[in-house]
């Protein structure tokens, strides 16, 4: 009897082991495509972004900036560089925020403060904190490493894949898991629901509007809601362009101190 149980256990384990890699590979394929669509369309891109931040009391805050993005040469969907030039609010006007996104270690971040002519290196290592006071996190803007979570296809219908992602290092993040709705035809993530350890939904990302830009389906309006505080941020993209042949040296100290007006219009 005992031996039979052992044999059975082994068989089940083998069957399970044989079946899951195939499924996992398929899920990983979806995740990779979704990651590409969300953060890596074209080899570079630029957009003017307006953020409308509202808190639970209805107080409104606004941010306006131009964001430039360039994918590093070499490996696809890997390192990237971002240049963010602020126009609003007035106290951060002409301030520049620059990120060199690395997959193998913490991102490198700089801040340029024009009134002091100061190029400051930012030590912030927590990617899951507010980006410029909005309800979006740094990670929502620049992307979360796809190997930081385990992904599981929990659902699908004609329109979307529903994928549940669980962090490999739960201590490093504030969520227990998140559910991502990925549009089947485009692989655009259209909704992301974040749950806490009690299984309670506390944060929701929604793509609100999609436009074709230079042949790329592009989310031009998106929203992040914080259900705990009752606040939300709506991000609106205008003047979106892809493959503008951004030179790599734009993302260097030279252009922190001397903004590349041609690309910031």
């Amino acid at each position: 009897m005992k031996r039979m149980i052992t044999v059975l256990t082994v068989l089940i384990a083998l069957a399970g082991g044989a079946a899951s890699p195939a499924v996992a590979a398929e899920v990983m394929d979806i995740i990779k495509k979704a990651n590409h669509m969300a953060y890596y369309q074209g080899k570079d891109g630029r957009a003017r972004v307006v953020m409308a931040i509202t808190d639970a009391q209805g107080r409104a805050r606004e941010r306006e900036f131009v964001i430039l993005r360039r994918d590093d040469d070499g490996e696809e969907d890997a390192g990237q560089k971002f240049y963010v030039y602020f126009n609003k609010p007035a106290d951060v006007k002409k301030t520049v925020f620059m990120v060199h996104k690395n997959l193998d270690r913490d991102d490198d971040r700089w801040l340029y403060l024009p009134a002091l002519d100061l190029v400051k290196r930012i030590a912030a290592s927590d990617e899951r904190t507010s980006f410029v006071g909005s309800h979006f996190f740094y990670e929502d803007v620049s992307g979360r490493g796809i190997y930081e979570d385990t992904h599981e296809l929990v659902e699908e219908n004609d329109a979307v894949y529903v994928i549940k992602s669980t962090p490999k290092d739960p201590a490093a993040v504030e969520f227990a898991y998140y559910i991502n709705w990925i549009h089947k035809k485009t692989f655009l993530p259209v909704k992301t629901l974040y749950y806490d350890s009690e299984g309670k939904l506390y944060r929701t990302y929604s793509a609100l509007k999609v436009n074709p830009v230079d042949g790329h389906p592009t989310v031009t309006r998106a929203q992040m809601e914080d259900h705990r505080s009752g606040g939300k941020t709506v991000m609106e993209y205008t003047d979106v362009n892809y493959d503008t042949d951004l030179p790599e040296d734009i993302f260097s100290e030279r252009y922190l101190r001397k903004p590349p007006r041609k690309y910031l219009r």
Partner: protein
Amino acid sequence: MKNLSIILLVAALSFGTVASAQEMTVQEMTVQETTAPETPLPELPEGLEDLFSDEPLAETPEEPARRGGGLPFDLSGFAEGRFGLRLQDDPLQKDISLGEARLQLDAEKSWEGFTLNLVSDFILDPVADDYDIDLERGRGAVDLREANLVFSPLDFVDVKLGRQILTWGTGDLVFINDLFPKDWNSFFIGRDTEYLKAPSDALKVSLFFDAFNVNVVYTPRFDADRFIDGHRVSFFDAMRGGTRGREAPLRDLRPDDWFSDDELAVRLYRSFGAYETALYFYSGYWKSPGGLDPVSGAALFPRLDVYGASMRGPVGAGIGAVELGYYDSADGAASNPLINNSEFRFLVSYEQEIGTEFTAAIQYYLERKLDYDAYLASLPAGLRAEDENRHLITLRLTKLLMNQDLTLSLFNFYSPSDEDGYLRLNVSYKLRDNLRVEAGGNLFYGRFPDSFFGQFEDASNLYTGLRYEF
């Protein structure tokens, strides 16, 4: 015919609605059976399905909002009021340490690769009560911060010509190779940190090569610090053996001949991966008085050359930096107690995020006199000898709260060798995007009345300010 197609279209649309309603029911059922989300299938974003219709939408037609308010140039700035009180009685100063209304206008105009920047402050300051404009010393009703032209004559060359704010190096409120002018008065009395930097009238040429980059800053006439001279903050005068204030401010003899009393600052820099390295050279004068004229008692700015280097990059979970400099003081300084010794200066720093939107940074800084024996030997009797080494430790804590509208900040300088220090506290809250209220303190402490920070003990103050930005 046209009617028929409309009917067909309506039929198709309603069929689509029915079909998706059915799907929805099926979807909801499956959702309940499995463990997954409690929320129903989301509505797809506007425009997503149109991507696949026969007649896709036109590509993003939105016009960006244009700014400028009809002006032919870009204008911004702020209006602010600031008020501060001394915590201790200083008989040599007014009780009100800060009381001013300030308007800053920032105009920028770009054309054909040229950019013109003009930034000027207009100040009503009854504490200083001095409205005669002196753009060099930053006194009076107008403080011209920037007036410069930026252009690139060649692909790899940037030029910035005119009045400008200049900063380099790795220190945080501690400077070794940044020998551009500082305004210590503004810093100590509680103006915004941006006023720690005083403008330079200079030509900055930057060259960018594959292997390295170079900045050359030429200042045709020496730009001194806006140093503590007694006008706003009293200081200890070792020669007189006492404190001097607004009635007897320090006079100075500054080198001021165009093109001969000039300054040159050079930085060579490049990155190795994430690590930024730089070499520095400076040839000019001590920026704050570095000597005394024994006859007139006036402050002097002896010759100074500085050779330095720095490196900055990720260390562990934070950012580390190291910087050093050799200060080669004027000829004969070694055995002249009235002129600053040559010095070796060293700084090491580390900054890390230690909590949610909570950052800590520490720095250790050393100033070492290089001809200490000669200095001691030549020191007149009765004057207290300075230490050979001045050690300084700084701590910065910054915490953001309430969607980053509230900032709490603390910066402390502490010198174990001088047994003194300086604590800067600031709380700032954004009432609206363009309206900020703040309060803070500048607290000096020390065992001796003549040490670097100890001499300013009576200048300790609390201040508050309100700023409207546009």
